[in-house]
């Protein structure tokens, strides 16, 4: 029986683990499931249940949404499939006609849809937001979020909050002025916009120098954030300032780039911010998923955020005030001597791009990136995908022209003589101390999920579309308590998304995209 998704169900998504109702599984964004039919004892018997091949040449970055036996998953660039979650057979396919030129830095991708009532919501690479009928795929409304010709796109999954669809934008390599938007579910009319780069007269504007750098300041919002219904705060990550690798044109801290922000959900007004990297010239976006945990902190119950940032530090923030509580490296880094009492980094010399090229840890893709971490209430551990790697950072002369890349240089992501390696790591979230590591030969481009079966699902699937035969494409299950491998399979294609799980007809299924397909797995 298909019931409609209500706000009440979204608020209590944990209570129905047979479904996966939001990008990260719940508003707390733990990417944790209470399902335990697949567990550490039987995971060795995982088998492919079904495969859905998509007619796409782009990377799949989507997390599927599952509602009462129906899976809604986006097909890149900006299409949607509704599938029978038990068999993978498609019910309908929404296919968007796109303009010839799309301004996306790093492939025309999409990270998934959001669902409420009888509607499915999709952001598109031509920077529109679309509401579809969940039963037919018919377009109910289709609105322009921003002008895609000037470099805006929407690649992230929307988040439903109350009667609003929240969406961010991408375009940090095109000199956009970033924002986070809220739209009316029924009409598509905009309720509010929070500009991540403050304009004249607004607080924070003074962090952009006296010129016009703020107008092309970047600060995209391309990964789905979290929601705290008690505080009524939307908590979201903001990406890099533009241009990426030459900060000369934008003297100052460049707020709110590379920051966590908390917005009042009804008005979009800023409640607090925490900037991980002031005046960034390394492209270390804060586009990670904020993990919201209520827990004891030094003897007192506290509303916390766990956040492993691209620059290589793991942070704990206070969710009410944004106060910095802890910061500790989870990977090798050579840019910050230390963090001060407020979490502001004391930068080391030789940690910014130069004309000759500077070698800095982590590399341009960071020590972690946009792919999701996980928190398990059973183990109490925080899990993430890590890159141990350095990069060659070059500095050139950026020049802004609308719709063209505005980056300042092209960095060397894989330093040939020392490409580094990848790992899944479990951290004690109270201290940032590593608990275990599952080491890999290559650097993955996908996140992790944990379950009540004490299983962690992850992959070492790199970005094979770059023509790298030496990358690998295994999907695996680990013992979440100690990192021991339980099972693996070679899926043979790029894995650039996050695992999820659901239950249909009494069987727990695990889904993961690889290459142009969604794979699901069961234990027989």
């Amino acid at each position, binding site marked *: 029986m298909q019931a409609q998704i209500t706000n009440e169900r979204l608020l209590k998504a944990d209570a129905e683990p047979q479904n996966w109702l939001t990008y990260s599984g719940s508003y707390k964004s733990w990417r944790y499931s209470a399902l335990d039919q697949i567990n550490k004892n039987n995971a060795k018997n995982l088998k492919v249940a079904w495969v859905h091949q998509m007619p796409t040449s782009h990377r799949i970055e989507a997390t599927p949404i599952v509602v009462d036996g129906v899976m809604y998953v986006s097909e890149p660039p900006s299409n949607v499939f509704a599938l029978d979650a038990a068999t993978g057979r498609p019910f309908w396919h929404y296919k968007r006609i796109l303009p010839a030129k799309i301004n996306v830095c790093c492939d025309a991708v999409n990270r998934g849809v959001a669902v409420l009532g009888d509607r499915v919501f999709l952001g598109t690479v031509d920077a529109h937001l679309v509401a579809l009928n969940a039963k037919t795929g018919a377009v109910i409304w289709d609105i322009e979020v921003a002008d895609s010709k000037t470099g805006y796109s929407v690649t992230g999954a929307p988040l439903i909050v109350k009667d609003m669809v929240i969406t961010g934008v991408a375009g940090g390599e095109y000199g956009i002025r970033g924002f986070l938007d809220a739209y009316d579910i029924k009409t598509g009319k905009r309720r509010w916009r929070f500009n991540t780069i403050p304009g004249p007269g607004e607080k924070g504007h003074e962090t952009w120098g006296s010129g016009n750098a703020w107008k092309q300041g970047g600060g995209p919002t391309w990964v789905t954030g979290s929601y705290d219904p008690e505080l009524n705060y939307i908590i979201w990550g903001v990406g890099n300032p533009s241009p990426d690798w030459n900060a000369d044109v934008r003297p100052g801290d460049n707020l709110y780039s590379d920051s966590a922000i908390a917005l009042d959900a009804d008005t979009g007004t800023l409640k607090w911010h925490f900037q991980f990297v002031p005046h960034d010239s390394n492209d270390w976006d804060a586009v990670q998923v904020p993990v919201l945990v209520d827990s004891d902190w030094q003897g007192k119950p506290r509303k916390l955020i766990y956040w492993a940032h691209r620059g290589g530090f793991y942070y704990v923030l206070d969710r009410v005030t944004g106060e910095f509580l802890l910061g500790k490296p989870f990977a090798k880094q050579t840019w910050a001597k230390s963090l001060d009492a407020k979490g502001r980094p004391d930068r080391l010399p030789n940690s910014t791009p130069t*004309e000759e*090229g500077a070698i800095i840890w982590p590399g341009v893709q960071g020590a972690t990136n946009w792919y999701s971490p996980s928190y398990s209430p059973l183990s109490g551990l925080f899990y993430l995908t890590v890159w141990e790697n350095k990069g*060659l950072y*070059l*500095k*050139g*002369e950026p*020049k802004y*022209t609308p719709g*063209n*890349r505005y*980056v*300042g*240089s*092209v*960095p*060397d992501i894989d330093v*040939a003589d020392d490409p580094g390696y990848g790992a899944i790591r479990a951290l004690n979230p109270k201290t940032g101390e590593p608990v275990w590591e599952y*080491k*890999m*030969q*290559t650097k993955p481009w996908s996140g992790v999920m944990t379950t009540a079966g004490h299983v962690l699902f992850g992959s*070492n699937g790199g970005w094979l579309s*770059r*023509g790298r*035969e*030496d990358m*690998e494409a*295994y999907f695996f299950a680990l013992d979440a308590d100690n990192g021991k491998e339980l099972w*693996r399979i070679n899926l043979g294609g790029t894995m650039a998304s996050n695992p999820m799980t659901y239950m249909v007809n009494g069987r727990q299924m695990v889904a993961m995209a690889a290459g142009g397909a969604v794979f699901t797995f069961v234990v027989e």
Partner: protein
Amino acid sequence: MRAVLALLFSTLVFAQNPHDTPADRAAGAKMFRSHCGPCHGTKATGGTGPDLTTGVFYHGSSDAELYHNISEGIAGTAMPDVFFDGTQVWQLVAYVRSLSQHATPAAPKGNVQHGAQLTREKGCTGCHLIRGEGGARGPDLSIIGSQRSLEHLRESILEPNAKVPQEYWVAKILAKDGANYSGFLMNQDTYMVQILDFSRGLTSVSRSNFKDFGIDRGSVMPSYKGKLTDAELDDVVAYLASLKRQKGGAE
């Protein structure tokens, strides 16, 4: 807009680079280092992207074609699209063009026919494939004249260890069951290593079966220092340099 298009069209038709002063070339050089160097090498002699100093460009050698490829990228390759405005693209064209103009005078001085004969007599084709003939223990040399400079060819013959691409590193594996493996390192993942084993051919060995594993980054090619006279070396280099990419050929 129409005037701009007309202007652009005319510059493309006449392929006259309007920004080709020494200052333009210097500006182009600077942009090249920060934006193109990561793939094409800081001196444009190639990396993951091709060598741009030979004067031969696979996707078109005219100024207009270079302008187009830098502006729009090259579909089906890793070459990305627009990073620059028109003036900047022309400055890059001027710089890239200057690289091969300087390279042109260094024409090979040896005897091509004698060089071809030497590559057979001295054992080169025992390991290298040249247009359908030869072995598979070294790089295919069929179009090496389009891919490498004279200096690089000379160095590779005399000092094979100077620059060894990763696919010619040699993996040596001793397995727990006592078997020995030796061959070119093809791919490594978390669980196994793939090699082109010198006796077995294409082989995957599980890491869980490793007793010992090492990678020799040197070349299996012997040095020809002292094995060729100066004149013979010139001839071989001249022959290799003559192996250009052929238009319309199967490459």
